């Protein structure tokens, strides 16, 4: 038997189309196909890890609360000495494991985490309905990241661009209630699911 396509946790509910009001500037929602890898640096190996990161992914480890993009892979700071690498697959976990032998623990979370991208002028107001972080341009912006709770669900949030677009990464087994909240919160402006 050959390995089949993985089932996306939101396959049944995130069908393309408009939800809520047919607003002029709806929230745009998409489900990027991603591999997600959790990397945790060994004690005292921070410098060697940074060098390996540079060599293999073309970027330094991002500073706390920030993200850095190196080519097709984005690194998101999630905790002291901890990063989430995300990018198109396949094989990101294997690449990371090879790159960081002896320098960091590498755990594939591609199935364990589900990423939802929200974009458009309504994004900040919609997120504010469940997210207590200040996402105003003076307080946040592209390249910024935070671990927080949105609608009672743990969420890794980072801003991608000035549209503004945000990527929201949640535990896959909680993706469905999270998605439900997002659609409800955005229904006043309308939610267009790609």
């Amino acid at each position, binding site marked *: 038997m*050959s390995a*089949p396509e993985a089932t996306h*946790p939101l396959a049944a509910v995130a069908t393309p189309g408009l939800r809520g009001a047919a607003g002029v500037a709806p929230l745009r929602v998409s489900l990027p196909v991603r591999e997600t890898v959790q990397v945790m640096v*060994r004690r005292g190996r921070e410098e060697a890890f940074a060098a390996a990161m540079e060599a293999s992914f073309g970027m330094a480890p991002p500073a706390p609360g920030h993200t850095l993009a190196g080519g097709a892979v984005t690194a998101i700071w999630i905790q002291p000495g901890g990063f989430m690498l995300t990018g198109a697959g396949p094989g990101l976990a294997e690449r990371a494991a090879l790159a960081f032998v002896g320098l960091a*623990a590498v755990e594939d979370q591609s199935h364990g985490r589900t990423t939802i991208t929200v974009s458009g002028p309504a994004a900040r107001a919609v997120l504010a309905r469940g997210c207590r972080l*200040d996402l105003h341009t003076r307080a946040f912006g592209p390249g910024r990241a935070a671990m927080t709770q949105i609608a009672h669900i743990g969420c890794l949030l980072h801003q991608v661009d000035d549209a503004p677009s945000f990527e929201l990464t949640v535990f896959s087994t909680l993706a469905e209630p999270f998605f439900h909240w997002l659609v409800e919160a955005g229904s006043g402006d309308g939610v267009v699911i790609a």
Partner: protein
Amino acid sequence: MTQPHRLATGGHVDRATRLSFSFDGRRYEGHAGDTLASALLANGVRLVGRSFKYHRPRGIFSAGVEEPNALVELREGARREPNTRATVAELFDGLSATSQNRRGSLAFDWMAVNGLLSPWLGAGFYYKTFMWPAAFWERVYEPMIRKAAGLGRASRLPDPDHYDAAHAHCDVLVVGAGAAGLAAARAAGATGARVILMEQDFMLGGDLLNEPGLEAWRRETVAALAAMPEVTLMPRSTVFGFYDQGVLGAVERLADHLAEPPPHTPRQRYWTIRAKEVVLATGAHERLIAFPGNDRPGVMLAGAARTYARRYGVRAGETAALFATHDGAYDAAFAIAEAGARIAAIIDPRSDSAAMQRAREAGFSVKAGSVVSGTMGGNALRGIAIGAQGSGARGDAVPVDLLMVAGGWNPAVHLASMSGAALAWDEALHTFVPGTPVQRERSAGACRGVNGIGAAAADGAAAGRDAAIAAGFAAGPDNTLPDTLAADHCSYPVWEVKGRGKAFVDLQDDVTTNDIRLAHREGFSHIEHAKRYTTHAMGTDQGKTGGIVGAAVLAEARGEPVAKVGLPRFRPYTAPIAWGAMAGQEVGKHFQPVRRTSLHAVHDAAGAVWMDAGIWKRPAYYPKREDADAWASVLREARAVRQRVGICDVSTLGKIAVEGPDAATFLDRVYANTFSTLPVGRARYGLMLREDGIVFDDGTTSRIGPERFFVTTTTAQAGPVMQHLEFHLASAWPDLDVSLASVTDQWAAVAIAGPKAREVVAGMVEGIDLSNDAFPFMAVADCIAAGVPARLFRISFSGELAYEVAMPAGHAAHVWRAAMQVGATHGIEPYGMEALGLLRIEKGHVAGSELNGQTTAHDLGLGRMLKKKGDFIGRVLAQRPGMTDPSRPRLVGLRSVDPRRQIRAGAHLLVDGRDQGWITSATQSVVDPGWIGLGMLREGEARIGSTILAANPLMGEEVPVRVVSPHGYDPENRLVRA
């Protein structure tokens, strides 16, 4: 002719827009910009409600949130909302309102007989009267009181509207959009700060709406604020609480001014605001005066009568008197006179003042040194008595239908008080004002005793600028402020005019001056006690008009100054808030997030009956058409496992990847047993204790590599165990080089259990020799399962030969289907939580019911697992005498003597009538049919073989049970090793 009391011009109502509404079934017309109260007054409706206890007729008393009387049921059916203040209910076309708390019609309420009984209905009446017999309280007295007193009726239907919540952040939050608030927001906004201006009214302006001469300034200021990109104007938003760390709560009414919310629009939105600096510009509420009959319909706060005339273009009476105690009140007389009413008299306890002279010059009859000593009338005011100040005489009667009362101003200090600031007594204003701030807040304008529009605006502008500077901004340009002559608002303190008849300090709760004195006489002299004994300053208005008057009456009774008596502590909410807004989206099935495994759709398709396991949904069992009942399904599934093979979703177990050079050392410390000796490719059952020695969690941990472990936890404790591990790694042993990652969601897992399990696994797994020698009990290896990279564990919860296959969650459905396909020839059946529980009880494995936060390893028969060498969490405290007491209840197996008699978890275990333990888990056995269970029993081991009673008084059951070993099924573990 409709609206006989509406003026032809003036105010902020749109006379071109006619809105139809009904009150008590009668149809009326009002205008856009009206409140229900202003529209009722325009139509000459003066009697709007009956009082709480005495059912006295009541009219509209105020023009705002402080309204004690005009509480109505708004809307009908599922949207019916009781106790809505007509004075703030924005009129919309089709509005329907009903008066409350009446038997019969509003004009003839037979419960008004309570008024005659009033000598016996004073404060504390319920506590004194309805005492005996005690059994009557719940069935007779309380329903009777609730029927007689009480206010409106809530709709008992589900709320058809939805509610929302949101978070806001700003540099400066300004609460209140009167002159002070508008000026503050503009000054703060001019610095470039992020400003939010919240106003509970649907129009911005506060008292400016009563000043046609300042309308240009109001409009210009609002327009300037609207043009500032970082200023957010939020009308219809009530800030109800000021909490720690600059957090405030508010409710925005998005659709209360509409018949029903438009699609996709919440009715209300609950805001949590985090502000660097706060400017409170909440204004002041006018104070009532406690004279006999001060509650008759037609007695109204002076400022309210002025607002109805100036803002709404409504004449609240035809012949009016003003009872003033300060010069600021006199504009009400001019306003109502301009509206066409006749001023019969102005009553003022003072001897003379500038305003009194102006009033005389205008031709008004000013009675200096006088007070209103009583009122006449029934359902409407017909006249007042005017007596000399301090004489106690009733004096002359003057016919009026409107009495405007101005007892002075009560600054709205609620939010400042909630923020932690003490209140300070202002000797000149005879009132409490906010004291020194504790948080980053400042009050401006009337809420700190700065009265008059010009003075308030200047105070607000300074406060707004200061707040922005404190938030880190440089001062912006100054703005023009309104220039007005300030009248003297320092009131002459007349709290009470003593005389015959009821003088109310709290109109809504029917609390009189005599009730306050009674409370004092009976020992409830502290303001907080007096409040609770009399119900003074409770209800929807929380004593906004008369709270301080009650305090003053109490102060006189105590012989102390009001400043010493103080006010009851202010707590959220400043104004009534709908429960719906607090619940927000979290109602019904969205009360909390629902967690689903990646096999959810598979179980659904198989017809699973769901059960809740924490926030998880798990299959309880999979009914088949031929199953007579749920037990038939459960027993069928369990038999399949014991006789053939079953498959079960165990994805909900917590899974933690533990990695690093010190991983084995770390696990030795957090587990009571040893893991450093575990070879790679093997799993071991582990027991984790809390610091206090009680069992915390159990599960299997596998060694995937020399420095890599795969820890599993119970479903319930997955989160707490992760926290526990992270906490100890961060705090106790930061020297250990270990990393933790939650991989619960990454890995789905299925258990395949039963005599035929090996055949099924062999049919779908590649890369592993499954022979007993090569892959024995407790072996672990990576493999390919149904073409998917997976991890195979030979572990068993059921007591059968069993495997668990873990695979990346997105592939779980594929693997499950493959197992079902391969297993079809072996009679495989999916089994749910009920069968899982049955099997583990038969086998004697402990689970959540036994790991209940009270049991030790020894209690559970797991004492030998505690390692002898080396420290571990819980070791020391587990050795306390109480924890090692041999008489502690121990785990036993139980079997109903009569196999048909059910035993239930929770039943008490009685030995010779003494309570010796309890049943933790119960089920039916498939191996030896009958009811069995596990329990905690004192001297449990010694009692094996004896028969005791399982008593469940709630069900009226006493069932004889035999005490047996908990390990009744395959005690030598031959099957799992087969």
